[in-house]
Protein backbone atom coordinates (compact mmCIF):
# COMPACT_ATOMS: atom_id res chain seq x y z
CA UNK A 1 0.00 0.00 0.00
CA UNK A 2 1.42 3.40 -0.99
CA UNK A 3 1.40 6.31 1.45
CA UNK A 4 -1.39 7.92 -0.60
CA UNK A 5 -3.53 4.75 -0.47
CA UNK A 6 -2.98 4.49 3.26
CA UNK A 7 -4.01 8.12 3.78
CA UNK A 8 -7.12 7.61 1.61
CA UNK A 9 -8.13 4.52 3.52
CA UNK A 10 -7.75 6.35 6.86
CA UNK A 11 -9.80 9.27 5.54
CA UNK A 12 -12.40 6.73 4.45
CA UNK A 13 -12.69 5.48 8.04
CA UNK A 14 -13.15 9.04 9.31
CA UNK A 15 -15.70 9.87 6.63
CA UNK A 16 -17.81 6.78 7.39
CA UNK A 17 -17.85 7.57 11.11
CA UNK A 18 -18.87 11.18 10.41
CA UNK A 19 -21.65 10.00 8.08
CA UNK A 20 -23.01 7.74 10.83
CA UNK A 21 -22.88 10.55 13.41
CA UNK A 22 -24.63 13.02 11.09
CA UNK A 23 -27.24 10.40 10.25
CA UNK A 24 -27.97 9.62 13.90
CA UNK A 25 -28.06 13.29 14.92
CA UNK A 26 -30.36 14.06 12.00
CA UNK A 27 -32.70 11.21 12.91
CA UNK A 28 -32.72 12.43 16.53
CA UNK A 29 -34.20 15.74 15.39
CA UNK A 30 -36.69 14.05 13.05
CA UNK A 31 -37.92 12.17 16.10
CA UNK A 32 -38.14 15.34 18.23
CA UNK A 33 -40.03 17.13 15.46
CA UNK A 34 -42.53 14.29 15.39
CA UNK A 35 -41.87 13.35 11.77
CA UNK A 36 -40.34 9.98 12.66
CA UNK A 37 -42.83 7.57 14.21
CA UNK A 38 -42.00 4.90 16.79
CA UNK A 39 -38.92 4.82 18.96
CA UNK A 40 -35.33 4.57 17.77
CA UNK A 41 -32.15 3.02 19.16
CA UNK A 42 -29.15 5.10 18.22
CA UNK A 43 -25.38 4.61 18.28
CA UNK A 44 -23.79 8.04 18.80
CA UNK A 45 -20.41 7.36 20.40
CA UNK A 46 -20.13 3.81 19.04
CA UNK A 47 -19.26 4.65 15.42
CA UNK A 48 -15.75 3.16 15.57
CA UNK A 49 -16.97 -0.37 16.29
CA UNK A 50 -19.18 -0.56 13.19
CA UNK A 51 -16.74 1.20 10.88
CA UNK A 52 -13.61 -0.57 12.14
CA UNK A 53 -15.09 -4.06 11.84
CA UNK A 54 -16.82 -3.55 8.48
CA UNK A 55 -13.66 -1.99 6.97
CA UNK A 56 -11.85 -5.24 7.75
CA UNK A 57 -14.42 -7.33 5.86
CA UNK A 58 -14.88 -8.06 2.16
CA UNK A 59 -18.11 -7.01 0.41
CA UNK A 60 -19.18 -10.68 0.23
CA UNK A 61 -18.64 -11.24 3.97
CA UNK A 62 -21.72 -10.94 6.16
CA UNK A 63 -22.66 -9.15 9.33
CA UNK A 64 -25.58 -9.68 11.67
CA UNK A 65 -26.84 -6.75 13.68
CA UNK A 66 -29.12 -5.74 16.52
CA UNK A 67 -31.91 -3.23 17.17
CA UNK A 68 -29.11 -0.61 17.20
CA UNK A 69 -28.15 -1.15 13.58
CA UNK A 70 -28.05 2.17 11.70
CA UNK A 71 -24.27 2.44 12.10
CA UNK A 72 -23.65 -1.18 11.11
CA UNK A 73 -25.74 -0.70 7.97
CA UNK A 74 -23.98 2.49 6.87
CA UNK A 75 -20.61 0.88 7.60
CA UNK A 76 -21.47 -2.21 5.51
CA UNK A 77 -22.32 -0.08 2.49
CA UNK A 78 -26.03 0.71 2.71
CA UNK A 79 -26.81 4.31 1.81
CA UNK A 80 -28.47 7.02 3.87
CA UNK A 81 -31.30 7.00 1.34
CA UNK A 82 -32.03 3.27 1.70
CA UNK A 83 -32.07 3.63 5.48
CA UNK A 84 -34.18 6.78 5.61
CA UNK A 85 -36.70 5.37 3.15
CA UNK A 86 -36.95 2.37 5.47
CA UNK A 87 -37.34 4.57 8.56
CA UNK A 88 -40.16 6.44 6.78
CA UNK A 89 -41.80 3.09 5.95
CA UNK A 90 -41.40 3.58 2.20
CA UNK A 91 -41.51 0.80 -0.40
CA UNK A 92 -38.07 1.97 -1.57
CA UNK A 93 -36.47 1.27 1.84
CA UNK A 94 -33.85 -1.43 2.31
CA UNK A 95 -36.55 -3.81 3.64
CA UNK A 96 -39.29 -2.38 1.39
CA UNK A 97 -40.68 -0.47 4.36
CA UNK A 98 -41.53 -3.64 6.26
CA UNK A 99 -38.65 -3.59 8.73
CA UNK A 100 -38.24 -0.07 10.09
CA UNK A 101 -35.43 1.19 12.27
CA UNK A 102 -34.86 -2.02 14.22
CA UNK A 103 -34.49 -4.28 11.19
CA UNK A 104 -32.33 -2.43 8.65
CA UNK A 105 -30.18 -4.60 6.39
CA UNK A 106 -29.66 -5.84 2.86
CA UNK A 107 -28.54 -9.39 2.04
CA UNK A 108 -27.05 -8.24 -1.29
CA UNK A 109 -24.70 -5.98 0.67
CA UNK A 110 -23.79 -8.62 3.20
CA UNK A 111 -26.02 -7.51 6.04
CA UNK A 112 -28.74 -9.72 7.49
CA UNK A 113 -31.63 -7.41 8.44
CA UNK A 114 -31.28 -6.41 12.09
CA UNK A 115 -32.37 -8.92 14.71
CA UNK A 116 -34.03 -7.09 17.58
CA UNK A 117 -34.11 -10.02 20.02
CA UNK A 118 -31.15 -9.65 22.40
CA UNK A 119 -28.59 -12.29 21.45
CA UNK A 120 -30.78 -13.54 18.59
CA UNK A 121 -28.15 -12.93 15.93
CA UNK A 122 -25.51 -15.06 17.63
CA UNK A 123 -26.86 -18.55 16.73
CA UNK A 124 -27.91 -17.23 13.33
CA UNK A 125 -24.39 -15.99 12.52
CA UNK A 126 -23.02 -19.31 13.73
CA UNK A 127 -25.36 -21.12 11.34
CA UNK A 128 -24.24 -18.94 8.45
CA UNK A 129 -20.62 -19.66 9.32
CA UNK A 130 -21.40 -23.39 9.33
CA UNK A 131 -22.91 -23.00 5.86
CA UNK A 132 -19.78 -21.22 4.62
CA UNK A 133 -17.60 -23.98 6.01
CA UNK A 134 -19.71 -26.77 4.45
CA UNK A 135 -19.72 -24.90 1.13
CA UNK A 136 -15.92 -24.56 1.39
CA UNK A 137 -16.32 -20.80 0.94
CA UNK A 138 -13.78 -18.47 2.53
CA UNK A 139 -16.43 -15.92 3.52
CA UNK A 140 -16.70 -14.91 7.17
CA UNK A 141 -19.51 -13.59 9.36
CA UNK A 142 -19.10 -10.80 11.90
CA UNK A 143 -21.82 -10.94 14.50
CA UNK A 144 -22.53 -7.70 16.41
CA UNK A 145 -24.18 -7.86 19.84
CA UNK A 146 -24.05 -5.93 23.09
CA UNK A 147 -22.84 -6.72 26.59
CA UNK A 148 -26.45 -7.48 27.54
CA UNK A 149 -26.44 -10.49 25.19
CA UNK A 150 -23.55 -12.25 26.88
CA UNK A 151 -25.60 -13.72 29.74
CA UNK A 152 -28.17 -15.12 27.28
CA UNK A 153 -28.19 -18.88 26.75
CA UNK A 154 -28.07 -18.32 22.99
CA UNK A 155 -24.59 -16.80 23.33
CA UNK A 156 -23.15 -19.78 25.20
CA UNK A 157 -24.75 -22.43 22.98
CA UNK A 158 -23.68 -20.72 19.78
CA UNK A 159 -20.10 -19.87 20.73
CA UNK A 160 -19.59 -23.44 21.95
CA UNK A 161 -20.76 -24.86 18.62
CA UNK A 162 -18.65 -22.36 16.68
CA UNK A 163 -15.65 -23.39 18.80
CA UNK A 164 -16.01 -27.17 18.45
CA UNK A 165 -16.56 -26.89 14.69
CA UNK A 166 -13.94 -24.16 14.10
CA UNK A 167 -16.39 -21.87 12.31
CA UNK A 168 -15.45 -18.64 10.49
CA UNK A 169 -17.36 -16.24 12.72
CA UNK A 170 -16.13 -13.15 14.54
CA UNK A 171 -18.25 -12.56 17.63
CA UNK A 172 -18.16 -8.77 18.05
CA UNK A 173 -19.33 -7.66 21.47
CA UNK A 174 -19.91 -3.91 21.62
CA UNK A 175 -19.46 -3.49 25.36
CA UNK A 176 -20.97 -0.06 26.08
CA UNK A 177 -21.19 -0.80 29.83
CA UNK A 178 -25.00 -0.88 29.99
CA UNK A 179 -27.61 -3.42 28.97
CA UNK A 180 -30.42 -0.86 28.60
CA UNK A 181 -30.08 0.78 32.07
CA UNK A 182 -28.22 -2.04 33.88
CA UNK A 183 -24.48 -1.61 34.34
CA UNK A 184 -22.36 -4.64 33.39
CA UNK A 185 -20.83 -5.08 36.85
CA UNK A 186 -24.29 -5.75 38.31
CA UNK A 187 -24.85 -8.73 36.05
CA UNK A 188 -21.32 -10.12 35.58
CA UNK A 189 -18.89 -11.34 38.20
CA UNK A 190 -16.15 -11.17 35.58
CA UNK A 191 -16.89 -8.07 33.51
CA UNK A 192 -14.06 -8.84 31.05
CA UNK A 193 -16.19 -10.35 28.31
CA UNK A 194 -13.27 -11.45 26.12
CA UNK A 195 -12.36 -13.96 28.86
CA UNK A 196 -15.48 -15.98 27.97
CA UNK A 197 -13.72 -17.23 24.83
CA UNK A 198 -10.97 -19.09 26.68
CA UNK A 199 -13.49 -21.17 28.63
CA UNK A 200 -14.77 -22.45 25.28
CA UNK A 201 -11.25 -22.95 23.91
CA UNK A 202 -10.94 -20.16 21.37
CA UNK A 203 -9.30 -16.74 21.06
CA UNK A 204 -10.75 -13.63 22.68
CA UNK A 205 -9.38 -10.11 22.79
CA UNK A 206 -10.42 -6.84 24.44
CA UNK A 207 -9.88 -3.80 22.21
CA UNK A 208 -10.38 -0.04 22.62
CA UNK A 209 -13.66 0.20 20.75
CA UNK A 210 -13.39 3.97 20.39
CA UNK A 211 -10.15 3.68 18.38
CA UNK A 212 -11.28 2.85 14.86
CA UNK A 213 -7.81 1.81 13.73
CA UNK A 214 -7.33 -0.53 16.68
CA UNK A 215 -10.75 -2.07 15.96
CA UNK A 216 -9.97 -2.45 12.26
CA UNK A 217 -6.57 -4.06 12.95
CA UNK A 218 -8.07 -6.56 15.41
CA UNK A 219 -10.93 -7.38 13.02
CA UNK A 220 -8.49 -7.89 10.11
CA UNK A 221 -6.45 -10.34 12.16
CA UNK A 222 -9.64 -12.11 13.24
CA UNK A 223 -10.99 -12.31 9.68
CA UNK A 224 -7.70 -13.70 8.37
CA UNK A 225 -7.70 -16.29 11.14
CA UNK A 226 -11.28 -17.31 10.29
CA UNK A 227 -10.50 -17.61 6.56
CA UNK A 228 -7.59 -19.91 7.37
CA UNK A 229 -9.87 -22.18 9.39
CA UNK A 230 -8.65 -20.92 12.78
CA UNK A 231 -11.96 -19.41 13.89
CA UNK A 232 -14.00 -18.41 15.75
CA UNK A 233 -12.73 -15.20 17.45
CA UNK A 234 -14.40 -13.10 20.15
CA UNK A 235 -13.66 -9.38 20.01
CA UNK A 236 -14.78 -7.30 22.96
CA UNK A 237 -14.87 -3.64 21.90
CA UNK A 238 -15.01 -1.18 24.81
CA UNK A 239 -17.19 1.75 23.90
CA UNK A 240 -19.91 4.04 25.26
CA UNK A 241 -23.38 5.05 24.18
CA UNK A 242 -23.64 8.87 24.16
CA UNK A 243 -27.40 8.66 23.87
CA UNK A 244 -30.29 6.86 25.57
CA UNK A 245 -30.91 3.14 25.11
CA UNK A 246 -33.85 4.32 23.03
CA UNK A 247 -35.16 7.80 22.34
CA UNK A 248 -37.47 7.50 25.35
CA UNK A 249 -34.55 6.91 27.72
CA UNK A 250 -33.02 9.90 29.52
CA UNK A 251 -30.00 7.74 30.61
CA UNK A 252 -30.07 9.13 34.14
CA UNK A 253 -28.22 5.96 35.20
CA UNK A 254 -25.00 7.12 33.50
CA UNK A 255 -23.05 9.15 36.10
CA UNK A 256 -22.05 12.63 34.94
CA UNK A 257 -18.32 11.99 35.49
CA UNK A 258 -18.49 8.79 33.45
CA UNK A 259 -20.28 10.55 30.60
CA UNK A 260 -17.66 13.31 30.59
CA UNK A 261 -14.75 10.89 30.63
CA UNK A 262 -16.14 9.03 27.62
CA UNK A 263 -17.10 12.24 25.80
CA UNK A 264 -13.42 13.18 26.00
CA UNK A 265 -12.71 9.90 24.19
CA UNK A 266 -15.23 10.46 21.41
CA UNK A 267 -14.22 8.12 18.56
CA UNK A 268 -14.59 10.74 15.83
CA UNK A 269 -12.83 13.50 17.77
CA UNK A 270 -9.84 11.37 18.72
CA UNK A 271 -9.37 9.99 15.20
CA UNK A 272 -9.80 13.40 13.52
CA UNK A 273 -7.24 14.86 15.94
CA UNK A 274 -4.81 12.03 15.16
CA UNK A 275 -5.16 12.56 11.41
CA UNK A 276 -4.74 16.32 11.84
CA UNK A 277 -1.61 15.81 13.95
CA UNK A 278 -0.15 13.54 11.30
CA UNK A 279 -0.95 15.98 8.49
CA UNK A 280 -3.45 13.69 6.72
CA UNK A 281 -6.27 16.24 6.93
CA UNK A 282 -6.75 19.72 8.43
CA UNK A 283 -9.58 21.11 10.52
CA UNK A 284 -11.24 22.67 7.48
CA UNK A 285 -11.14 19.29 5.74
CA UNK A 286 -12.93 17.64 8.65
CA UNK A 287 -15.53 20.42 8.61
CA UNK A 288 -16.07 19.90 4.88
CA UNK A 289 -16.62 16.18 5.52
CA UNK A 290 -19.19 17.01 8.18
CA UNK A 291 -20.97 19.53 5.94
CA UNK A 292 -21.10 17.02 3.06
CA UNK A 293 -22.51 14.32 5.33
CA UNK A 294 -25.13 16.74 6.70
CA UNK A 295 -26.10 17.79 3.17
CA UNK A 296 -26.35 14.17 2.03
CA UNK A 297 -28.64 13.48 5.00
CA UNK A 298 -30.90 16.49 4.42
CA UNK A 299 -31.32 15.66 0.74
CA UNK A 300 -32.10 12.03 1.54
CA UNK A 301 -34.76 13.12 4.07
CA UNK A 302 -36.47 15.27 1.45
CA UNK A 303 -36.64 12.34 -0.98
CA UNK A 304 -37.70 9.88 1.75
CA UNK A 305 -40.66 12.08 2.79
CA UNK A 306 -42.18 11.72 -0.66
CA UNK A 307 -41.07 8.16 -1.39
CA UNK A 308 -43.89 5.72 -2.32
CA UNK A 309 -45.47 3.80 0.57
CA UNK A 310 -46.02 0.03 0.23
CA UNK A 311 -49.49 -1.04 -0.88
CA UNK A 312 -51.66 -3.71 0.81
CA UNK A 313 -51.02 -5.88 -2.27
CA UNK A 314 -47.37 -6.15 -1.19
CA UNK A 315 -48.30 -7.46 2.24
CA UNK A 316 -47.17 -11.03 1.66
CA UNK A 317 -44.29 -10.39 -0.71
CA UNK A 318 -40.70 -10.46 0.61
CA UNK A 319 -41.83 -12.06 3.85
CA UNK A 320 -40.51 -15.57 3.25
CA UNK A 321 -37.43 -16.62 1.28
CA UNK A 322 -38.24 -18.15 -2.09
CA UNK A 323 -38.31 -21.96 -2.09
CA UNK A 324 -34.87 -23.30 -2.86
CA UNK A 325 -34.42 -25.70 -5.76
CA UNK A 326 -32.89 -29.06 -4.85
Amino acid at each position, binding site marked *: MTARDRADSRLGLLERMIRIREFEEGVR*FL*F*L*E*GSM*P*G*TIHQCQGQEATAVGVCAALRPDDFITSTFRGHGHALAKGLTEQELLDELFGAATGCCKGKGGSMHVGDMSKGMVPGIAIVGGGIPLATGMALAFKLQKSDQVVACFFGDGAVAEGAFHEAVNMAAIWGLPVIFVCENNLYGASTRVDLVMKNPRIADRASSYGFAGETVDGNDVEAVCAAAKTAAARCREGGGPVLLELLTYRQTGHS*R*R*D*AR*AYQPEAERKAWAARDPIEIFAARLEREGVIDEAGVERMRAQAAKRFTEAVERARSAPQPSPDDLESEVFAPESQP
Partner: protein
Amino acid sequence: MRIDVRMPDLAATEGSDIMVKRWLIPKGARVKRGQALLEVETDKATMEVESIATGVLAETCVRPDGKVAVGEVIARIEAEP
Protein backbone atom coordinates in the same frame (compact mmCIF):
# COMPACT_ATOMS: atom_id res chain seq x y z
CA MET B 1 -40.16 31.73 10.32
CA ARG B 2 -42.27 30.62 13.29
CA ILE B 3 -41.93 26.93 14.07
CA ASP B 4 -44.34 24.84 16.11
CA VAL B 5 -42.71 22.74 18.82
CA ARG B 6 -44.73 19.59 19.44
CA MET B 7 -44.54 17.19 22.37
CA PRO B 8 -42.31 14.33 21.22
CA ASP B 9 -43.35 10.70 21.60
CA LEU B 10 -41.46 10.04 24.86
CA ALA B 11 -43.94 8.06 26.97
CA ALA B 12 -43.28 4.39 27.59
CA THR B 13 -47.00 3.58 27.37
CA GLU B 14 -48.44 4.55 24.04
CA GLY B 15 -51.17 7.16 24.32
CA SER B 16 -50.33 8.34 27.84
CA ASP B 17 -50.08 12.09 28.40
CA ILE B 18 -46.82 13.82 29.22
CA MET B 19 -46.47 16.48 31.91
CA VAL B 20 -44.52 19.68 31.34
CA LYS B 21 -42.44 20.06 34.55
CA ARG B 22 -40.69 23.36 33.81
CA TRP B 23 -39.36 25.51 31.03
CA LEU B 24 -35.56 25.63 31.05
CA ILE B 25 -35.49 28.60 28.65
CA PRO B 26 -37.61 31.64 29.59
CA LYS B 27 -40.08 32.99 27.06
CA GLY B 28 -38.44 35.61 24.87
CA ALA B 29 -34.93 34.17 25.31
CA ARG B 30 -32.70 32.71 22.61
CA VAL B 31 -32.42 28.96 22.29
CA LYS B 32 -30.09 26.86 20.17
CA ARG B 33 -31.01 23.71 18.27
CA GLY B 34 -30.14 20.77 20.52
CA GLN B 35 -30.23 22.85 23.74
CA ALA B 36 -32.49 21.59 26.55
CA LEU B 37 -35.73 23.54 26.24
CA LEU B 38 -37.99 22.03 28.88
CA GLU B 39 -38.23 19.24 31.41
CA VAL B 40 -41.05 16.75 31.11
CA GLU B 41 -42.34 13.86 33.18
CA THR B 42 -43.54 10.77 31.36
CA ASP B 43 -45.20 7.69 32.82
CA LYS B 44 -41.70 6.35 33.41
CA ALA B 45 -39.12 9.09 33.80
CA THR B 46 -38.28 12.77 34.07
CA MET B 47 -36.35 13.97 31.09
CA GLU B 48 -35.20 17.01 29.16
CA VAL B 49 -36.49 17.82 25.71
CA GLU B 50 -34.13 19.55 23.32
CA SER B 51 -35.02 22.42 21.02
CA ILE B 52 -35.58 21.51 17.37
CA ALA B 53 -34.54 24.97 16.14
CA THR B 54 -32.28 27.94 16.82
CA GLY B 55 -34.08 31.22 17.46
CA VAL B 56 -36.18 33.01 20.05
CA LEU B 57 -38.71 31.19 22.21
CA ALA B 58 -41.71 33.28 21.17
CA GLU B 59 -44.50 31.40 22.91
CA THR B 60 -44.95 28.67 25.50
CA CYS B 61 -48.37 27.04 25.30
CA VAL B 62 -48.29 24.82 28.39
CA ARG B 63 -47.75 25.86 32.00
CA PRO B 64 -45.66 23.81 34.43
CA ASP B 65 -47.58 20.74 35.67
CA GLY B 66 -49.83 20.90 32.61
CA LYS B 67 -50.38 17.60 30.81
CA VAL B 68 -50.47 17.29 27.03
CA ALA B 69 -50.83 14.55 24.47
CA VAL B 70 -47.99 13.52 22.15
CA GLY B 71 -47.98 15.73 19.04
CA GLU B 72 -49.68 18.71 20.72
CA VAL B 73 -48.07 22.13 20.16
CA ILE B 74 -46.27 23.14 23.35
CA ALA B 75 -44.29 26.17 22.13
CA ARG B 76 -43.42 28.30 19.14
CA ILE B 77 -39.93 29.37 18.15
CA GLU B 78 -39.19 32.33 15.90
CA ALA B 79 -36.44 30.51 14.04
CA GLU B 80 -33.42 32.12 12.48
CA PRO B 81 -33.13 31.36 8.78
